[in-house]
């Protein structure tokens, strides 16, 4: 005779579940301390419009992790990466991050989220006290705002304010040299687009006070057609245009502006142009677009950087992205810190990371530093140049000066009430 059971959860399995739940809440670190391998959790965007960037982050992390493991691991422990898709949704990123630590037993987090997601993961790191390195969020406030500061989180990413200072001053020097006084802007209508454009024009006007912004356009993020924006800008007849459109939006915009011959009518400053994702996709890349460096293997023009770019391409059959170098740098930092601390204890690593300077192919002078007071990356290669339609795409990049960036950044922090 078969026993029938009422549907639903039995008392026995309820008890078992509760027990398991209590175990996982109460004693995850017991299991961790005994593990030979160290699990590092990584939420990032592996599906949707930005999947390419998330994938390139994963690729770069794995490229470096393989090197670390081949050299003996972190303080003798092999790294096991646990990488999960957050679909680019902040609440999903937070859930995944929590699950990685609580259920999968990850001891550290590498946060491969865009800005909105990174703030959510940051809160998880605050809550769980786990060591966390942000590798993709460029939003300045993530580390500049003292309210965000926690001892266990670091940001290994270029920063919006640094880009604005360098971009604004570079654009001002061109504006002065060529007499570009009437400017138009065209940027995506969300926090990143608004903030970056605001900061860029702030510094542009600061260095070239007679510049005037005569037309602003705010197309939607992922808008398929920009024709009405293109013609609106043509009507305004500016001498120069600034845009922080990126990815597929930027390439659409260029294709659509191209057939209106826009690029022969004004100087164009597109901060996100010099990224291989855009450079290699645009079929008719106009010559002479000014762009900030995202990742380009010719800047800094060192054998180390070129070798890294080539190694990445050899392994994944495409060039790295801006997110790639940042993620690779994060692994380099963690590896160096573990060596110095001779430990994988999150607290000890965090102590060592503060103010740590490491050799790095992406450093302006061959090194990068994790600044001690706000736990953010400084000293990375940053500059602007103009495009050509074939490799190396941006033959000459003018480097920004970190001394000047520090001065202006300090001033900006003060004006924001951060210091």
């Amino acid at each position, binding site marked *: 005779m078969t026993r029938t059971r009422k549907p639903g959860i039995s008392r026995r399995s309820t008890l078992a579940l509760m027990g398991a739940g209590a175990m996982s809440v109460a004693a995850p670190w017991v299991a961790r301390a005994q593990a030979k391998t160290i699990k590092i959790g990584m939420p990032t965007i592996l599906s949707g419009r930005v999947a390419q960037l998330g994938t390139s982050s994963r690729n770069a992390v794995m490229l470096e992790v393989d090197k670390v493991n081949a050299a003996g691991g972190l303080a003798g422990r092999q790294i096991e990466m646990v990488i999960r898709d957050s679909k680019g949704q902040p609440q999903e990123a937070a859930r995944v991050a929590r699950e990685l630590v609580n259920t999968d037993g990850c001891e550290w987090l590498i946060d491969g989220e865009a800005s909105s997601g990174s703030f959510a993961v940051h809160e998880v790191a605050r809550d769980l006290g786990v060591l966390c390195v942000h590798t993709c969020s460029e939003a300045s406030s993530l580390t500049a705002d003292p309210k965000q500061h926690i001892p266990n989180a670091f940001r290994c990413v270029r920063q919006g304010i640094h880009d604005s200072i360098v971009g604004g001053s570079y654009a001002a*020097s061109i504006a002065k040299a060529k007499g570009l006084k009437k400017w138009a802007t065209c940027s995506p209508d969300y926090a990143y687009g608004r903030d970056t454009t605001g900061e860029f024009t702030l510094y542009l006007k600061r260095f070239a*006070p007679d510049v005037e912004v005569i037309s602003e356009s705010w197309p939607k993020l992922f808008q398929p057609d920009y024709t009405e924006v293109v013609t609106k800008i043509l009507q305004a007849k500016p001498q120069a245009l600034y845009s922080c459109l990126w990815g597929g939006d930027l390439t659409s915009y260029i294709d659509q502006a191209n057939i209106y011959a826009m690029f022969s009518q004004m100087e164009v400053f597109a901060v996100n142009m010099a990224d291989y994702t855009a450079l290699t996709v645009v079929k008719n890349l106009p010559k002479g677009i000014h762009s900030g460096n995202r990742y380009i293997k010719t800047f800094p023009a060192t054998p180390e950087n070129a070798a890294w770019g080539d190694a990445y391409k050899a392994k994944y059959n495409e060039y790295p992205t801006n997110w790639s170098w940042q993620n690779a740098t994060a692994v380099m930092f963690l590896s160096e810190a573990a060596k110095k601390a001779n430990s994988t204890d999150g607290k000890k690593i965090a102590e060592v990371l503060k103010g740590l300077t490491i050799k790095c192919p992406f450093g302006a002078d061959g090194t990068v530093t994790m600044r001690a007071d706000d736990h953010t990356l400084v000293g990375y290669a940053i500059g*602007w140049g103009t495009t050509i339609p074939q490799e190396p795409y941006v033959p000459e990049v003018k480097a920004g000066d970190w001394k000047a960036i520090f001065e202006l950044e300090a001033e900006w922090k003060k004006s924001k009430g951060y210091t």
Partner: protein
Amino acid sequence: MTVSAVFVSFSAPYQAHDHESASVDLDALAGCLSSSACLVTQTTSGLIIGMLLFLVAVGLTLIFGVLKIVNFSHGAFYMFGAYFAMTAYQLTGSFALAMLAGAAGTAILGLIFERVFMSRVYGADVLMQLLVCYAFVLIFDDVVRIIWGPEFKSMGMPSAFQVMPLFIAGGVVPPYYLLLIGVALVVAIVLGIGLSRSRIGKVVRAAAHNPGMVSALGINTGLIYGGVFALGGMLAGLAGALAAPVRSLTPGMGFSVLIESFIVTVIGGMGSILGALIGALLLGLIRSFGSLGFPLFTEGLMYLFMVIVLVSKPTGLFGKEAA
């Protein structure tokens, strides 16, 4: 260039962000309406947006008119059209073949999709039909991701169209967009005349009106349904192919176009070809002139217009009252 030259001056004081973007800029709109150059540029800009939208929306409205199905997966055909065109262009280098591949490929796909899947849910609940369509929105997006990869692509403008734009009455008009408007116009005329005058058109209209009677007369309604679905898919595919040289290709690119197409069909009236044409052109013009006069409310204007139409004429401008 030295670093000090990059940082030209440190002495200038901070300036406040003095140019606040206005949400309403009627001066700009009035200025444009009184200048022939601006009028020409913005009108053609509106026509381009409208005509591409028309091609997608007319397929949607045709399928609804005859099959009584709201084809929620219609955007996928636009996407496939663009990808087929890009691949054909890369293989052959011929723009004409690329357009043909976009249109023919999606026609075949539409026929298969209708015969194998949609024909099974004709009698079913509307929710069931929507679910099947939505499932295929996701499946088609993933198919594109598997075949062409998740990253965005660009087809590139054929060299024949890489020329200086024309200047008509001071306004700027790219030659490629003239072709685009021309193709869409021809489609509109052929469809309009074909459906009202030709024998096939009459049969299709009869099938839409009373499929049982048409079937009783010995006409294969399955063939008509498949044909109409293929035609609808082909038109969306043609729109995708025409858009491919100027828009980036990405999995999921059909979705935003689909939403706007629904607005067009709601404004013009479900099932009406003329309605789709007028609705699409109105939307295009609202976008192009709205971006001057109401830069922060361009999207809102489209929806506002749709609401006004819905309130004053719930069946749409050219929709027929339900029998």
